[in-house]
Protein backbone atom coordinates (compact mmCIF):
# COMPACT_ATOMS: atom_id res chain seq x y z
CA UNK A 1 0.00 0.00 0.00
CA UNK A 2 1.29 3.43 -0.82
CA UNK A 3 0.21 5.03 2.46
CA UNK A 4 2.79 2.98 4.37
CA UNK A 5 5.49 3.93 1.95
CA UNK A 6 4.80 7.59 2.42
CA UNK A 7 5.34 7.39 6.17
CA UNK A 8 9.07 7.70 5.50
CA UNK A 9 8.49 11.33 4.58
CA UNK A 10 6.83 12.06 7.92
CA UNK A 11 9.96 13.28 9.75
CA UNK A 12 10.95 15.30 6.69
CA UNK A 13 7.70 17.25 6.77
CA UNK A 14 7.87 17.59 10.55
CA UNK A 15 11.42 18.93 10.48
CA UNK A 16 10.54 21.47 7.80
CA UNK A 17 7.50 22.56 9.79
CA UNK A 18 9.37 22.76 13.10
CA UNK A 19 12.24 24.74 11.56
CA UNK A 20 9.83 27.40 10.31
CA UNK A 21 7.71 27.29 13.47
CA UNK A 22 10.81 27.86 15.66
CA UNK A 23 11.66 31.03 13.79
CA UNK A 24 8.11 32.35 13.96
CA UNK A 25 7.70 31.48 17.65
CA UNK A 26 11.03 32.96 18.73
CA UNK A 27 10.27 36.19 16.91
CA UNK A 28 6.74 36.36 18.34
CA UNK A 29 7.96 35.75 21.91
CA UNK A 30 10.73 38.26 21.38
CA UNK A 31 8.21 40.81 20.20
CA UNK A 32 6.63 40.88 23.67
CA UNK A 33 9.82 41.69 25.54
CA UNK A 34 12.15 43.54 23.21
CA UNK A 35 12.23 47.31 22.84
CA UNK A 36 10.75 48.92 19.77
CA UNK A 37 11.93 52.42 19.08
CA UNK A 38 12.36 53.04 15.39
CA UNK A 39 13.43 56.34 13.88
CA UNK A 40 14.58 57.35 10.44
CA UNK A 41 18.33 57.24 10.95
CA UNK A 42 18.14 53.84 12.57
CA UNK A 43 16.17 52.38 9.72
CA UNK A 44 18.61 53.55 7.07
CA UNK A 45 20.72 51.02 5.26
CA UNK A 46 24.29 50.98 6.58
CA UNK A 47 26.71 52.78 4.34
CA UNK A 48 29.60 53.57 6.67
CA UNK A 49 27.75 56.43 8.34
CA UNK A 50 26.97 58.36 5.17
CA UNK A 51 23.46 58.74 3.83
CA UNK A 52 22.89 55.93 1.37
CA UNK A 53 23.10 56.98 -2.26
CA UNK A 54 20.64 55.44 -4.66
CA UNK A 55 19.43 51.92 -4.17
CA UNK A 56 21.39 48.71 -4.00
CA UNK A 57 19.38 46.84 -6.62
CA UNK A 58 21.53 47.87 -9.52
CA UNK A 59 23.63 46.18 -12.17
CA UNK A 60 26.25 43.61 -11.33
CA UNK A 61 29.10 41.87 -13.00
CA UNK A 62 28.13 39.38 -15.72
CA UNK A 63 30.76 37.01 -14.28
CA UNK A 64 28.24 35.98 -11.64
CA UNK A 65 25.90 34.84 -14.37
CA UNK A 66 28.54 32.92 -16.33
CA UNK A 67 29.58 31.06 -13.19
CA UNK A 68 26.02 30.11 -12.31
CA UNK A 69 25.51 29.06 -15.93
CA UNK A 70 28.41 26.61 -15.80
CA UNK A 71 27.14 25.49 -12.43
CA UNK A 72 23.64 24.62 -13.62
CA UNK A 73 24.96 22.48 -16.47
CA UNK A 74 27.16 20.49 -14.10
CA UNK A 75 24.38 20.31 -11.53
CA UNK A 76 22.13 18.65 -14.09
CA UNK A 77 25.00 16.37 -15.04
CA UNK A 78 25.29 15.31 -11.40
CA UNK A 79 21.55 14.65 -11.24
CA UNK A 80 21.84 12.34 -14.27
CA UNK A 81 24.94 10.58 -12.96
CA UNK A 82 23.48 9.70 -9.56
CA UNK A 83 21.15 6.88 -10.68
CA UNK A 84 23.86 5.46 -12.96
CA UNK A 85 26.40 5.54 -10.12
CA UNK A 86 23.86 3.79 -7.89
CA UNK A 87 23.66 0.78 -10.26
CA UNK A 88 27.39 0.80 -11.05
CA UNK A 89 28.26 -1.88 -8.53
CA UNK A 90 25.45 -4.24 -9.46
CA UNK A 91 26.50 -4.04 -13.13
CA UNK A 92 30.06 -4.97 -12.14
CA UNK A 93 28.71 -7.90 -10.18
CA UNK A 94 26.89 -9.31 -13.21
CA UNK A 95 30.06 -8.89 -15.29
CA UNK A 96 28.98 -5.89 -17.39
CA UNK A 97 31.47 -3.54 -15.76
CA UNK A 98 33.21 -2.41 -18.92
CA UNK A 99 29.91 -1.52 -20.61
CA UNK A 100 28.74 0.74 -17.82
CA UNK A 101 32.22 2.22 -17.44
CA UNK A 102 32.19 3.18 -21.12
CA UNK A 103 28.74 4.79 -20.75
CA UNK A 104 29.80 6.61 -17.62
CA UNK A 105 33.13 7.78 -19.01
CA UNK A 106 31.67 9.00 -22.30
CA UNK A 107 29.11 11.09 -20.48
CA UNK A 108 31.72 12.67 -18.21
CA UNK A 109 34.27 13.24 -20.98
CA UNK A 110 31.74 15.04 -23.20
CA UNK A 111 31.05 17.45 -20.37
CA UNK A 112 34.75 17.74 -19.59
CA UNK A 113 35.08 19.15 -23.13
CA UNK A 114 32.70 21.90 -22.01
CA UNK A 115 34.80 22.90 -19.03
CA UNK A 116 37.99 22.78 -21.12
CA UNK A 117 36.34 25.08 -23.66
CA UNK A 118 35.28 27.54 -20.97
CA UNK A 119 38.78 27.43 -19.50
CA UNK A 120 40.46 28.17 -22.85
CA UNK A 121 38.06 31.02 -23.57
CA UNK A 122 38.69 32.58 -20.17
CA UNK A 123 35.19 32.16 -18.77
CA UNK A 124 36.61 30.64 -15.61
CA UNK A 125 38.80 33.65 -14.86
CA UNK A 126 37.13 35.92 -12.37
CA UNK A 127 39.29 38.86 -13.44
CA UNK A 128 40.23 38.85 -17.09
CA UNK A 129 43.96 39.27 -17.39
CA UNK A 130 45.28 42.14 -19.47
CA UNK A 131 46.99 41.37 -22.74
CA UNK A 132 50.51 42.73 -23.17
CA UNK A 133 49.24 45.39 -25.59
CA UNK A 134 46.73 46.68 -23.09
CA UNK A 135 49.38 46.76 -20.40
CA UNK A 136 51.62 48.86 -22.65
CA UNK A 137 48.75 51.22 -23.38
CA UNK A 138 48.03 51.53 -19.68
CA UNK A 139 51.65 52.34 -18.85
CA UNK A 140 51.75 54.87 -21.68
CA UNK A 141 48.65 56.56 -20.33
CA UNK A 142 50.26 56.64 -16.92
CA UNK A 143 53.44 58.18 -18.32
CA UNK A 144 51.43 60.81 -20.16
CA UNK A 145 49.94 61.88 -16.86
Amino acid at each position, binding site marked *: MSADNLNVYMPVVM*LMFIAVATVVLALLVGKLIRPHNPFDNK*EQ*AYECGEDPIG*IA*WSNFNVRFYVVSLIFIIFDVEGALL*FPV*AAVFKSFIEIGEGSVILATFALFILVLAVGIVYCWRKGDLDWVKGFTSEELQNLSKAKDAQ
Partner: protein
Amino acid sequence: MNPTFVTYLEQFLGYPATNLMAAVFFLVAVSILVGVMATIGGLGTYAERKISADIQARIGPNRVGPFGLLQMLADGVKMILKEDIIPSKADKLIFILAPMMAMFGVFATLAVLPFSSGLTLTDLNIGVFYVLGVGSFVGVAIFLGGYASNSKWSMLGGMRGASQIISYEIPVTLSILVAVTMAGGLSFSTLVEAQTGLPHGWYLFHNPFSFIAFFVLFIGALAETNRAPFDLPEAESELVSGYHTEYTGMRFGFFALAEYVEVFVVCGIAAALFLGGYKVPFDLGNGEVLSNALMNIPFLKMVVPMTNGTPIFKLLGSGLGQLLQLGSFFTKTLALYYVVIWIRWTLPRLRVDTLMTLCWKYLTPIALFNLLGAATWMVVFHGKSIYQIIFESGAAQAVGGH
Protein backbone atom coordinates in the same frame (compact mmCIF):
# COMPACT_ATOMS: atom_id res chain seq x y z
CA MET B 1 10.17 -0.17 2.38
CA ASN B 2 12.91 1.97 3.82
CA PRO B 3 13.90 1.51 7.44
CA THR B 4 13.05 4.43 9.67
CA PHE B 5 13.34 5.24 13.34
CA VAL B 6 9.86 3.75 13.83
CA THR B 7 10.67 0.43 12.14
CA TYR B 8 13.58 0.16 14.58
CA LEU B 9 11.22 0.69 17.51
CA GLU B 10 8.78 -1.84 16.04
CA GLN B 11 11.36 -4.57 16.57
CA PHE B 12 10.95 -4.08 20.31
CA LEU B 13 7.22 -3.47 20.28
CA GLY B 14 6.77 -6.74 18.47
CA TYR B 15 3.91 -5.43 16.36
CA PRO B 16 3.67 -2.82 13.58
CA ALA B 17 2.95 0.71 14.71
CA THR B 18 -0.21 2.37 13.48
CA ASN B 19 0.04 5.61 11.55
CA LEU B 20 -0.91 7.64 14.59
CA MET B 21 1.69 5.92 16.76
CA ALA B 22 4.30 6.43 14.06
CA ALA B 23 3.41 10.12 13.97
CA VAL B 24 3.75 10.42 17.73
CA PHE B 25 7.09 8.59 17.77
CA PHE B 26 8.40 10.73 14.95
CA LEU B 27 7.19 13.92 16.60
CA VAL B 28 8.96 13.07 19.86
CA ALA B 29 12.14 12.05 18.03
CA VAL B 30 12.09 15.14 15.82
CA SER B 31 11.55 17.46 18.78
CA ILE B 32 14.43 15.89 20.68
CA LEU B 33 16.66 16.04 17.62
CA VAL B 34 15.89 19.72 17.00
CA GLY B 35 16.63 20.47 20.64
CA VAL B 36 19.91 18.58 20.52
CA MET B 37 20.87 20.26 17.27
CA ALA B 38 20.09 23.73 18.61
CA THR B 39 22.30 22.91 21.61
CA ILE B 40 25.07 21.68 19.33
CA GLY B 41 24.74 24.87 17.30
CA GLY B 42 25.04 26.90 20.51
CA LEU B 43 27.95 24.83 21.73
CA GLY B 44 29.51 25.40 18.32
CA THR B 45 29.76 29.12 19.05
CA TYR B 46 31.20 28.33 22.48
CA ALA B 47 33.70 25.85 21.04
CA GLU B 48 34.69 28.33 18.37
CA ARG B 49 35.49 30.99 20.95
CA LYS B 50 37.27 28.62 23.30
CA ILE B 51 39.38 27.04 20.56
CA SER B 52 40.24 30.39 19.02
CA ALA B 53 41.24 31.61 22.47
CA ASP B 54 43.37 28.54 22.90
CA ILE B 55 45.08 29.07 19.56
CA GLN B 56 45.71 32.74 20.31
CA ALA B 57 46.84 32.05 23.89
CA ARG B 58 43.84 33.71 25.53
CA ILE B 59 41.28 32.34 27.98
CA GLY B 60 38.03 32.90 26.15
CA PRO B 61 34.56 33.07 27.72
CA ASN B 62 34.78 32.06 31.37
CA ARG B 63 32.24 34.14 33.28
CA VAL B 64 28.81 32.65 32.68
CA GLY B 65 28.42 29.26 34.31
CA PRO B 66 31.19 26.72 34.80
CA PHE B 67 34.00 27.29 32.25
CA GLY B 68 31.70 29.80 30.55
CA LEU B 69 29.53 26.97 29.28
CA LEU B 70 26.32 28.94 29.69
CA GLN B 71 27.66 31.71 27.48
CA MET B 72 25.49 30.47 24.62
CA LEU B 73 22.33 30.86 26.74
CA ALA B 74 23.37 34.39 27.63
CA ASP B 75 23.95 35.09 23.94
CA GLY B 76 20.53 33.68 23.08
CA VAL B 77 18.77 35.80 25.71
CA LYS B 78 20.65 38.86 24.50
CA MET B 79 19.59 38.23 20.93
CA ILE B 80 15.93 37.82 21.84
CA LEU B 81 16.04 41.03 23.87
CA LYS B 82 17.66 43.05 21.07
CA GLU B 83 15.56 45.46 19.10
CA ASP B 84 14.47 44.10 15.74
CA ILE B 85 15.29 46.61 13.02
CA ILE B 86 14.00 46.26 9.48
CA PRO B 87 15.45 48.94 7.17
CA SER B 88 12.76 51.22 5.82
CA LYS B 89 13.86 50.67 2.22
CA ALA B 90 14.00 46.89 2.56
CA ASP B 91 11.67 44.40 0.91
CA LYS B 92 9.98 43.43 4.18
CA LEU B 93 8.40 40.13 3.14
CA ILE B 94 11.63 38.70 1.72
CA PHE B 95 13.60 40.16 4.63
CA ILE B 96 11.46 38.10 7.02
CA LEU B 97 11.46 35.05 4.75
CA ALA B 98 15.25 34.73 4.27
CA PRO B 99 16.30 33.48 7.76
CA MET B 100 13.32 31.12 7.76
CA MET B 101 14.48 29.63 4.50
CA ALA B 102 18.01 29.15 5.83
CA MET B 103 16.69 27.31 8.90
CA PHE B 104 14.33 25.31 6.70
CA GLY B 105 17.07 24.15 4.38
CA VAL B 106 19.47 23.17 7.15
CA PHE B 107 17.05 21.44 9.51
CA ALA B 108 15.40 19.42 6.74
CA THR B 109 18.75 17.75 6.03
CA LEU B 110 18.77 16.33 9.58
CA ALA B 111 16.05 13.84 8.62
CA VAL B 112 18.48 11.51 6.85
CA LEU B 113 21.64 12.08 8.90
CA PRO B 114 22.74 8.60 10.12
CA PHE B 115 23.42 9.03 13.84
CA SER B 116 23.29 5.28 14.33
CA SER B 117 21.75 2.32 12.55
CA GLY B 118 18.55 2.68 14.56
CA LEU B 119 18.47 6.40 15.21
CA THR B 120 18.37 7.55 11.61
CA LEU B 121 15.07 9.37 11.49
CA THR B 122 14.27 8.11 8.02
CA ASP B 123 16.58 6.30 5.67
CA LEU B 124 15.33 7.57 2.33
CA ASN B 125 16.37 5.73 -0.82
CA ILE B 126 17.65 9.00 -2.22
CA GLY B 127 19.56 9.90 0.99
CA VAL B 128 22.59 11.87 -0.21
CA PHE B 129 20.79 13.34 -3.18
CA TYR B 130 18.01 14.59 -0.89
CA VAL B 131 20.60 16.35 1.24
CA LEU B 132 22.01 18.10 -1.83
CA GLY B 133 18.52 19.15 -2.92
CA VAL B 134 17.28 20.51 0.38
CA GLY B 135 20.66 22.01 1.22
CA SER B 136 20.52 24.22 -1.85
CA PHE B 137 17.79 26.28 -0.17
CA VAL B 138 20.53 27.84 1.97
CA GLY B 139 22.12 29.43 -1.10
CA VAL B 140 18.78 30.94 -2.10
CA ALA B 141 18.28 32.16 1.48
CA ILE B 142 21.67 33.89 1.54
CA PHE B 143 21.00 35.56 -1.81
CA LEU B 144 17.55 36.71 -0.69
CA GLY B 145 18.91 37.95 2.63
CA GLY B 146 21.39 40.08 0.75
CA TYR B 147 18.82 41.23 -1.77
CA ALA B 148 16.05 42.11 0.68
CA SER B 149 18.22 44.40 2.84
CA ASN B 150 18.61 46.89 0.00
CA SER B 151 22.06 47.77 1.22
CA LYS B 152 25.07 47.67 -1.07
CA TRP B 153 27.19 45.66 1.34
CA SER B 154 24.45 43.09 1.81
CA MET B 155 23.82 42.83 -1.89
CA LEU B 156 27.49 42.22 -2.68
CA GLY B 157 27.74 39.69 0.12
CA GLY B 158 24.60 37.91 -1.02
CA MET B 159 25.72 37.71 -4.66
CA ARG B 160 29.15 36.46 -3.65
CA GLY B 161 27.68 34.01 -1.17
CA ALA B 162 25.25 32.52 -3.66
CA SER B 163 27.82 32.20 -6.44
CA GLN B 164 30.36 30.69 -4.04
CA ILE B 165 27.87 28.16 -2.66
CA ILE B 166 26.70 27.03 -6.07
CA SER B 167 30.25 26.87 -7.47
CA TYR B 168 31.53 24.62 -4.72
CA GLU B 169 28.48 22.39 -5.00
CA ILE B 170 30.00 20.88 -8.18
CA PRO B 171 33.17 19.39 -6.61
CA VAL B 172 31.10 18.29 -3.61
CA THR B 173 28.56 16.51 -5.83
CA LEU B 174 31.28 14.81 -7.85
CA SER B 175 33.08 13.65 -4.69
CA ILE B 176 29.85 12.27 -3.24
CA LEU B 177 29.39 10.42 -6.54
CA VAL B 178 32.72 8.64 -5.89
CA ALA B 179 31.33 7.20 -2.65
CA VAL B 180 28.03 6.32 -4.34
CA THR B 181 29.87 4.52 -7.15
CA MET B 182 31.76 2.41 -4.63
CA ALA B 183 28.79 1.58 -2.38
CA GLY B 184 26.11 1.05 -5.03
CA GLY B 185 23.25 2.99 -3.51
CA LEU B 186 22.20 6.46 -2.44
CA SER B 187 20.73 5.71 0.97
CA PHE B 188 22.94 6.36 3.97
CA SER B 189 22.50 2.85 5.34
CA THR B 190 23.92 1.38 2.11
CA LEU B 191 26.78 3.85 2.12
CA VAL B 192 27.72 3.28 5.75
CA GLU B 193 27.16 -0.48 5.89
CA ALA B 194 29.54 -0.96 2.95
CA GLN B 195 32.36 0.22 5.20
CA THR B 196 33.84 -1.28 8.35
CA GLY B 197 34.52 -0.08 11.84
CA LEU B 198 38.29 -0.18 11.59
CA PRO B 199 40.02 2.33 9.29
CA HIS B 200 41.18 -0.26 6.75
CA GLY B 201 37.64 -0.60 5.48
CA TRP B 202 36.81 3.10 5.36
CA TYR B 203 36.20 4.60 1.96
CA LEU B 204 38.93 7.11 2.79
CA PHE B 205 41.48 4.31 2.38
CA HIS B 206 39.58 2.31 -0.24
CA ASN B 207 41.64 3.53 -3.18
CA PRO B 208 43.78 6.56 -4.05
CA PHE B 209 40.90 8.28 -5.81
CA SER B 210 38.55 8.13 -2.85
CA PHE B 211 41.37 9.44 -0.65
CA ILE B 212 41.54 12.55 -2.84
CA ALA B 213 37.74 12.73 -3.05
CA PHE B 214 37.46 13.06 0.71
CA PHE B 215 39.69 16.12 0.76
CA VAL B 216 37.88 17.69 -2.18
CA LEU B 217 34.61 17.07 -0.36
CA PHE B 218 35.95 18.59 2.84
CA ILE B 219 37.29 21.73 1.13
CA GLY B 220 34.04 22.09 -0.79
CA ALA B 221 32.03 21.67 2.40
CA LEU B 222 34.04 24.45 4.07
CA ALA B 223 33.21 26.75 1.18
CA GLU B 224 29.56 25.72 1.05
CA THR B 225 29.04 26.59 4.69
CA ASN B 226 30.88 29.91 4.26
CA ARG B 227 33.56 29.00 6.76
CA ALA B 228 37.01 30.51 6.73
CA PRO B 229 39.16 30.57 4.64
CA PHE B 230 36.17 30.86 2.34
CA ASP B 231 34.06 33.29 4.38
CA LEU B 232 34.04 35.90 1.63
CA PRO B 233 30.29 36.62 1.86
CA GLU B 234 30.84 38.00 5.36
CA ALA B 235 34.38 39.27 4.93
CA GLU B 236 34.37 41.94 7.62
CA SER B 237 37.39 43.82 6.32
CA GLU B 238 35.82 44.57 2.96
CA LEU B 239 32.08 43.90 3.17
CA VAL B 240 31.25 45.10 6.73
CA SER B 241 29.33 41.92 7.53
CA GLY B 242 28.15 40.60 4.20
CA TYR B 243 24.64 39.42 3.60
CA HIS B 244 23.53 39.89 7.22
CA THR B 245 24.75 43.46 7.62
CA GLU B 246 21.21 44.73 8.15
CA TYR B 247 20.00 41.82 10.26
CA THR B 248 19.72 42.39 13.99
CA GLY B 249 18.80 40.37 17.04
CA MET B 250 17.17 37.00 16.62
CA ARG B 251 16.93 37.20 12.83
CA PHE B 252 20.71 37.34 12.68
CA GLY B 253 20.77 34.64 15.33
CA PHE B 254 18.89 32.26 13.07
CA PHE B 255 21.34 32.81 10.23
CA ALA B 256 24.19 32.05 12.64
CA LEU B 257 22.44 29.01 14.10
CA ALA B 258 21.74 27.67 10.61
CA GLU B 259 25.41 28.09 9.74
CA TYR B 260 26.67 26.22 12.81
CA VAL B 261 24.18 23.39 12.38
CA GLU B 262 25.07 23.16 8.71
CA VAL B 263 28.74 22.78 9.60
CA PHE B 264 27.77 19.89 11.86
CA VAL B 265 25.63 18.35 9.10
CA VAL B 266 28.33 18.50 6.43
CA CYS B 267 30.90 17.11 8.88
CA GLY B 268 28.47 14.30 9.65
CA ILE B 269 27.99 13.58 5.96
CA ALA B 270 31.73 13.57 5.32
CA ALA B 271 32.15 11.17 8.25
CA ALA B 272 29.34 8.92 7.03
CA LEU B 273 30.57 8.79 3.44
CA PHE B 274 34.30 8.36 3.93
CA LEU B 275 35.09 7.68 7.59
CA GLY B 276 32.84 4.75 8.27
CA GLY B 277 29.99 6.74 9.83
CA TYR B 278 28.45 5.04 12.82
CA LYS B 279 30.33 1.74 12.38
CA VAL B 280 32.03 0.51 15.55
CA PRO B 281 35.17 -1.69 15.43
CA PHE B 282 34.71 -5.46 15.82
CA ASP B 283 31.01 -5.19 14.95
CA LEU B 284 30.17 -4.18 18.51
CA GLY B 285 27.42 -1.86 17.29
CA ASN B 286 25.37 -4.78 16.03
CA GLY B 287 23.95 -5.57 19.46
CA GLU B 288 23.95 -9.34 19.05
CA VAL B 289 27.59 -9.64 20.07
CA LEU B 290 26.95 -7.59 23.17
CA SER B 291 23.76 -9.37 24.18
CA ASN B 292 25.46 -12.75 23.76
CA ALA B 293 28.34 -11.53 25.91
CA LEU B 294 25.91 -10.29 28.56
CA MET B 295 24.06 -13.58 28.60
CA ASN B 296 27.28 -15.39 29.34
CA ILE B 297 28.04 -13.43 32.49
CA PRO B 298 27.27 -15.90 35.31
CA PHE B 299 26.31 -13.21 37.82
CA LEU B 300 23.59 -11.77 35.60
CA LYS B 301 22.40 -15.27 34.79
CA MET B 302 21.62 -15.80 38.44
CA VAL B 303 19.92 -12.45 38.97
CA VAL B 304 17.64 -12.46 35.92
CA PRO B 305 15.44 -15.52 35.44
CA MET B 306 16.40 -16.99 32.11
CA THR B 307 12.90 -17.68 30.85
CA ASN B 308 11.76 -14.11 30.32
CA GLY B 309 15.21 -12.61 30.67
CA THR B 310 16.37 -13.18 27.11
CA PRO B 311 14.43 -10.27 25.53
CA ILE B 312 15.85 -7.99 28.20
CA PHE B 313 19.38 -8.99 27.23
CA LYS B 314 18.53 -8.42 23.63
CA LEU B 315 17.16 -4.99 24.42
CA LEU B 316 20.14 -4.15 26.59
CA GLY B 317 22.65 -5.36 24.04
CA SER B 318 20.92 -3.53 21.22
CA GLY B 319 20.69 -0.35 23.26
CA LEU B 320 24.36 -0.51 24.20
CA GLY B 321 25.24 -1.16 20.57
CA GLN B 322 23.26 1.91 19.50
CA LEU B 323 25.03 4.00 22.13
CA LEU B 324 28.41 2.81 20.85
CA GLN B 325 27.37 3.68 17.31
CA LEU B 326 26.24 7.13 18.44
CA GLY B 327 29.59 7.58 20.15
CA SER B 328 31.45 6.52 17.03
CA PHE B 329 29.47 8.90 14.81
CA PHE B 330 29.80 11.85 17.15
CA THR B 331 33.52 11.25 17.71
CA LYS B 332 34.24 11.36 13.98
CA THR B 333 31.91 14.27 13.32
CA LEU B 334 33.14 16.39 16.19
CA ALA B 335 36.75 15.68 15.23
CA LEU B 336 35.98 17.08 11.78
CA TYR B 337 34.15 19.99 13.45
CA TYR B 338 37.30 20.73 15.44
CA VAL B 339 39.36 20.70 12.24
CA VAL B 340 36.91 23.16 10.66
CA ILE B 341 37.34 25.58 13.57
CA TRP B 342 41.10 25.01 13.63
CA ILE B 343 41.33 25.90 9.94
CA ARG B 344 39.33 29.05 10.52
CA TRP B 345 41.80 30.41 13.03
CA THR B 346 44.87 29.28 11.08
CA LEU B 347 44.46 30.24 7.45
CA PRO B 348 43.98 33.72 6.01
CA ARG B 349 40.99 34.51 3.83
CA LEU B 350 41.15 33.94 0.06
CA ARG B 351 40.56 36.67 -2.50
CA VAL B 352 37.42 36.36 -4.60
CA ASP B 353 39.30 35.56 -7.81
CA THR B 354 41.53 32.98 -6.11
CA LEU B 355 38.40 31.46 -4.64
CA MET B 356 36.85 30.98 -8.05
CA THR B 357 40.15 29.78 -9.50
CA LEU B 358 40.45 27.18 -6.75
CA CYS B 359 36.96 25.91 -7.44
CA TRP B 360 36.82 25.86 -11.22
CA LYS B 361 40.45 25.31 -12.21
CA TYR B 362 41.58 22.94 -9.48
CA LEU B 363 38.80 21.23 -7.57
CA THR B 364 36.31 20.63 -10.39
CA PRO B 365 38.76 19.06 -12.88
CA ILE B 366 40.34 17.03 -10.07
CA ALA B 367 36.93 15.83 -8.94
CA LEU B 368 35.87 14.96 -12.50
CA PHE B 369 38.91 12.82 -13.21
CA ASN B 370 38.77 11.44 -9.70
CA LEU B 371 35.30 10.16 -10.43
CA LEU B 372 36.50 8.57 -13.67
CA GLY B 373 39.47 7.06 -11.86
CA ALA B 374 37.32 5.62 -9.07
CA ALA B 375 34.92 4.12 -11.62
CA THR B 376 37.85 2.56 -13.52
CA TRP B 377 39.29 1.19 -10.27
CA MET B 378 35.96 -0.41 -9.43
CA VAL B 379 35.81 -2.13 -12.81
CA VAL B 380 39.47 -3.18 -12.98
CA PHE B 381 39.77 -4.51 -9.42
CA HIS B 382 36.14 -5.65 -9.06
CA GLY B 383 35.47 -3.28 -6.18
CA LYS B 384 38.34 -4.46 -4.00
CA SER B 385 40.06 -1.95 -1.75
CA ILE B 386 43.83 -1.56 -1.55
CA TYR B 387 43.84 -3.45 1.74
CA GLN B 388 41.98 -6.38 0.22
CA ILE B 389 44.26 -6.48 -2.82
CA ILE B 390 47.48 -6.42 -0.80
CA PHE B 391 46.61 -8.66 2.13
CA GLU B 392 43.81 -10.94 1.08
CA SER B 393 45.09 -11.82 -2.38
CA GLY B 394 48.56 -12.15 -0.88
CA ALA B 395 47.19 -14.58 1.69
CA ALA B 396 45.42 -16.49 -1.05
CA GLN B 397 48.68 -16.77 -3.00
CA ALA B 398 50.51 -17.94 0.09
CA VAL B 399 47.88 -20.62 0.62
CA GLY B 400 47.98 -21.55 -3.06
CA GLY B 401 51.79 -21.83 -2.97
CA HIS B 402 51.73 -24.61 -0.41
